[in-house]
């Protein structure tokens, strides 16, 4: 019996092998070979294309290497020696140099000028028929309308290993769909080293975090708009967001606390429209401002930033008509036909920011103080905002609460008054270039009905 079983098993095995080899033979002899050849040809072509792409990258690397070896004392000898025993850790702050030379597919390059664009399309509807913030093409009498907001062209060019030029040209929609060009930033930058970096030109003041972190490009912001206190002064924001002068930043080597400083001296010359829709402008006729700030980026909690700044300037409370002609000075009872007064403006900021692991938690507080240069009452305007968001896949829900309390007697912020309330919304990133945002705002105002708003935005970069 065992022999029989063994013989049967052997026969089955042989027939199985023959069957399989028959199939294999049949397959190999089928005309499907042509398809296989075609597939192989395609693969060869793909490999050739990949090889070409790799060759391009090699060329790029070689070019970069040439440019890097031209300037610095790169090669054999002077390599820096570590001062700390365990490390030769990099020092703390940016010095856009070689990393900068790294090519990014995100930036377009045209004859050495790298550029990038940002744009937005907004629809905003309010439960009132007068504009708020004096922004963009809001048509008085309508509850809501579309507008383009800011269209930004951002250009940079490296001049030498340590110097570069940066500019941000903003096309901003005004009344009747007329657009004005605003050179939001134009900077000649010189990075002596990590501890000393100069910028000369028009810059965004480093009062607090938001103005430093976010420029005109709304695509970069989570929310559809900036917090009111950080809104651009040209849109009715409270702070001098821009200045022309010199800015110096750098790190202070104090171990792992990551201490950095910023010092600015320049002229702001702020003209801000009233945000209550009366159509008047405040020409602050600024003197020369000085701003000094410090912030920590501790190693232990990556993404945490704690800092503060103090700003000082002298401004006036001159009121201009819509046409730009002077009217007088704003006082408690409205506009007085007197020459404007001069005020010492001091702005103190403190902020705690955490951005990591998909969490964005921004908290900033301000105290804006106006003290008359001669005699009179001093006004303190406290303001803060807190914003939290968490990225959940392509969606980032956010919530923000803001508060501003300006005295009605305050000649400069008498259009602001007391305002506070939350904003809720969602940001949806359709891809790396397009974001859709929806935001609901509720603002409580002193002496006025509560304001509700819906803000829809399509923000993009290219």
């Amino acid at each position, binding site marked *: 019996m065992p022999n029989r079983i063994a013989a049967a098993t052997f026969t089955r095995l042989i027939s199985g092998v023959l069957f399989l080899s028959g199939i294999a033979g049949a397959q190999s002899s089928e005309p499907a070979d042509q398809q296989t050849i075609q597939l192989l040809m395609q693969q060869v072509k793909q490999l050739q294309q990949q090889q070409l*792409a*790799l060759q391009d*990258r090699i060329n*790029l*690397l070689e070019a*970069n*290497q040439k440019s*890097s070896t031209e300037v*610095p004392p790169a090669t*054999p000898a002077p*390599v*820096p*020696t*570590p001062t*700390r025993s*365990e*490390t*030769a*850790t*990099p*020092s*703390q*702050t*940016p*010095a*856009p*140099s*070689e*990393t*900068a*030379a*790294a*090519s*990014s*597919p*995100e*930036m377009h390059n045209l004859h050495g000028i*790298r550029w*990038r664009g940002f744009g937005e399309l907004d629809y905003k509807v309010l439960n009132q028929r007068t504009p708020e913030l004096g922004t963009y093409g809001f048509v008085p009498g309508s509850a809501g309308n579309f507008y383009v907001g800011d269209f930004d062209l951002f250009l*940079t060019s490296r001049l030498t*290993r340590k110097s*570069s030029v940066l500019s941000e040209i903003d096309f901003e929609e005004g009344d009747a769909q007329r657009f004005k060009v605003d050179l939001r930033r134009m*900077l000649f*930058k010189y990075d002596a*080293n*990590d501890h000393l970096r100069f*910028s000369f030109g028009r810059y965004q003041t480093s009062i607090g975090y938001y103005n*430093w*972190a*976010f*420029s005109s*490009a709304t695509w*970069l912001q989570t929310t559809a708009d900036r917090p009111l206190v950080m809104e651009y002064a040209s849109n009715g924001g409270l702070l001098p967001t821009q200045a022309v002068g010199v800015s110096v930043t750098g790190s202070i080597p104090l171990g792992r606390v990551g201490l950095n400083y910023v010092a600015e001296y320049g002229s702001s010359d702020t003209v801000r429209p009233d945000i209550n829709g009366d159509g008047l402008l405040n020409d602050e006729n600024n003197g020369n401002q000085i701003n000094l700030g410090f912030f920590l980026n501790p*190693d232990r909690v*990556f993404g945490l930033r704690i800092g503060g700044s103090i700003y000082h300037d002298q401004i006036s409370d001159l009121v201009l008509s819509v046409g730009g002609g002077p009217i007088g000075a704003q006082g408690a009872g409205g506009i007085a036909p007197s020459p404007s007064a001069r005020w010492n403006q001091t702005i103190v900021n403190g902020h705690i920011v955490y951005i*990591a*692991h*998909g969490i964005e938690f921004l908290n900033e507080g301000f105290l804006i103080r106006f003290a008359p240069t001669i005699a009179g009452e001093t006004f303190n305007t406290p303001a803060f905002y807190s914003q939290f968001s968490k*990225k959940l896949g392509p969606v980032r829900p956010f919530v923000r609460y803001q508060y501003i309390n300006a005295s009605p007697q305050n000649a400069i912020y008498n259009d602001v008054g007391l305002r506070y309330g939350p904003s809720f919304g969602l940001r949806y990133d359709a891809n*790396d270039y397009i974001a859709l945002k929806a935001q609901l705002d509720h603002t409580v105002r002193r002496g006025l009905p509560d304001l509700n708003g819906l803000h829809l935005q399509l923000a993009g970069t290219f």
Partner: protein
Amino acid sequence: MRRRKPVLMKLLAAGLFGLILASYSVAQSHTIAVIVNPKNPVTNLTLGDLRKIFTGVERTWHGGLPVKITVRGPDTLERFVLLRILGMSEAEYRQYWTAKVFRGEADGEPVVLPSFGMTKEAVGLFPGGIALVDVQDLKPGMNIKVIKVEGHMPGEPGYPNL
């Protein structure tokens, strides 16, 4: 027919478990090392240093040598580890660099290289070069230097789980 569902569920669960186990074992067998140019005197970096370097916060080595970051592209182990170190998603990483460029703190994103070979060449070329690589790709005689992280070499006990 009723019995099939639990069997299917069991099969699916077993498959999923197997997949997790396999990916875990792959992750365990692939340790990430930090490499720099041999001329760079750095011997050790902390995780904090790595974060600051790969986010462009620190851009010069001590002494002024410019840091030259090279990174691997998306869907690679090195990129996965980089994003984990930085606590960012792929989209956040790209947006982070866009914002950094827009603030004028960098000219562009770090160079993305498609292979270990090119990464190794780039780090060997640039005196300030630094990159994350899979330990299994490393071989003796390469023109690069593997450095310690938190005081430990890759494979040593105490080496952080990169």
